[in-house]
């Protein structure tokens, strides 16, 4: 979904098989996804990306503004690029999942035409996990300092797990 800026239809390998050109800057398109602490998120892209475009893959856990993970898309000319997003740290709430938004953020003036975007999960053993901070109200929390509200109370429905609550 287009969150910011403008896009237009553009030819790819075939003049009638269209992709999306990101016009001007900034341009942001997003795709909702879910995360857990067991699997990595795989993001693949086929496109024509110039380095000057400063195209960045961003992950916004809870889709609430702060970017928990980002990676710059290198220059590519219609080759498939694959990126792996590590799991989130949810050891305080086993088997929980959280919502997130994957975004492609064009920050520069270079040309970007996107043909194919794929999002999926893959099993992985990650050495680093994404630490959750600024957790919104109603979401599980390990401690009060992780909550946006500064309050983490025991969950009434899941024993042994905290949940952020309004101050």
């Amino acid at each position, binding site marked *: 979904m287009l969150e910011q800026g403008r896009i237009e239809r553009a*030819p*790819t*390998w*075939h*003049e*009638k*098989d269209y992709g999306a050109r990101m016009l001007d800057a900034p341009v942001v398109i997003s795709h909702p996804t879910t995360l857990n602490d067991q699997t990595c998120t795989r993001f693949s892209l*086929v496109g024509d990306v110039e380095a000057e475009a400063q195209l960045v893959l961003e992950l916004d856990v809870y889709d609430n503004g702060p970017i928990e993970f980002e990676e710059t898309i290198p220059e590519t000319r*219609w*080759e*498939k690029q694959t990126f792996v997003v590590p799991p989130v740290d949810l050891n305080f709430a086993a088997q929980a999942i959280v919502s997130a938004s994957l975004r492609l953020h064009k920050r520069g003036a270079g040309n970007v035409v996107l*043909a*194919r975007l794929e999002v999926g999960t893959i099993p992985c053993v990650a050495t680093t996990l994404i630490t959750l901070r600024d957790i919104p109200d109603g979401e599980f929390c390990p401690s009060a300092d992780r909550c946006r509200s500064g309050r983490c109370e025991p969950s009434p429905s899941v024993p042994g797990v905290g949940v952020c609550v309004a101050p």
Partner: protein
Amino acid sequence: MRPVLLALLAMLAIFFASSGAAAQTRPHPIAYAVVVGSNPGGAGQQQLEYAEKDAERVAKLLVELGGYDAQRVRLLLRPDAGRVLATLDGLKRQFEAHASRGEDALLFFYYSGHARADALNLGAQTLRLGTLRQRLTALPATLTITVLDACQSGAFSRAKGASRAADFSYNSMQALRTRGFAVMASSTEKELSQESDELKSSYFTHHFLVGLRGAGDHNRDGRVSLDEVYRYAYARTLAATARTAVGGQHATLETELMGQGDVPLSYPAAADAHVELAPDFDGRVLLQIQPSGSVIAEVTKAKGTQLTLAVPSGSYSATVKRGEKAWSCELDVKSRAGVTLDLGRCTAVADGSASAKGAGREVWNFEVGFGFGAPPEDAYVKHLHTFGFSESYGPLITQRWCEPALFTSGAERRLTRGLGVFARFQIIDHCEFRRLDSAEFSYYAYSLDAGVRGRLELLDWLTGYAQVEIGPALGVTHLSAAGTTETIESEEANFGFHTRASAGLMFLPWKLGGFFAEAGYAYAPLIENELGDVHDSGGFAVLIGFHIRNTRTE
């Protein structure tokens, strides 16, 4: 002096006695004939058209003009080897009986059919020449005359082939020092013998029979000897076959007559009826029996001598050709009479209606085939995969290869025995792809090539070839995609070229042709995408199909 005078008188008596033989109707006091004809070939041999008919004609002429008793002529059509040998064994007792009574007995053995180097091919069976020789020499005949018109399958004119003459006669001579023996063969050991569709006979047997009808009577004594008919058949067969694609055919004769003298084979002077060509007549005459159209004689005559052909009474048509002019004549030959061919009573006809001499020559060939291709997986195809397309599955495909959809159809013009040119239309590439979003993409590639083909005949029925070709090519792509707001249908044409080098084998067991199989590698940079990738529609390809021969009579 008296003994000398008596001896001279005796010699004169013998001379006049032998001269009187010119009028006798029996070539030998007792004469047997075994006449064999077999059209079928063995493995890889093309069925002959006229071998059995030739045998029938030979048997009939031996009775008609050779003075043979019909009861002593054994005609074997399409026999197996056992029957041939049994027939010879059956004659052994009779020859022994004649020998015990001090009677001379002659055997005439004729064979027309397929042969290989050391055996006659009687359909699926073979009769080794050594075995046949042994059986023939075992017969206590005073004189044995063997005529072999043996064949192997070959090109369009059903080339016959055998090297049996030298082998047969050489070995025979060693064992036949005590009796007369002659072997006449239709070609040398390194040549092929041929049939003619125009004559409806093998060239050799046709001219052998025409010679016996009187055309071979060189000394005009009313009878045709073994030597005379050989010389006639040799010259006429060679002249007739020199212009065929298979090449000139030299008849051979080897004799060991041991005092038999000049052996008469036919007595045309004693025939029931004659067709005569006057001394001032010149030209080529094709004499056909009516209404069947069977060719009874084809002769070429020069001015200066009279030619008398012994024929059965009946109706005949004669086609005469002299230079560019031609005539058609109807002849009614009555019993105990002769008819002189008179051009004044013939009708001039268009040149083309006078059938010219010669066997069919392979000129045009046609081919149609199908194939399996493996175009290289180049950047064009890889990008299709990158953009989410996968090859569609077909009945014989894998994920990686496209459907085998090669097709070829073309014609070849033979320039020489070993060289030809060809043109052909081909589908050289085809592939279909699908994507998860229901988009479909496909391409076809076509070429129209001209090429040069070199041939090498490995066997009569097997030819190897190598060729190169090049021509313009067309690639057509089709994309269809159903989006949320619109449906896209796009077809594009790309032009380029196609070139291929290939080699193959032709299996040609039949007159009409057979099969071919070839493999080669092609290059056809043809279909291009928006990214600058050009797909090569060439690569490795295998083609199999039909090769159809078209022969032309000259």
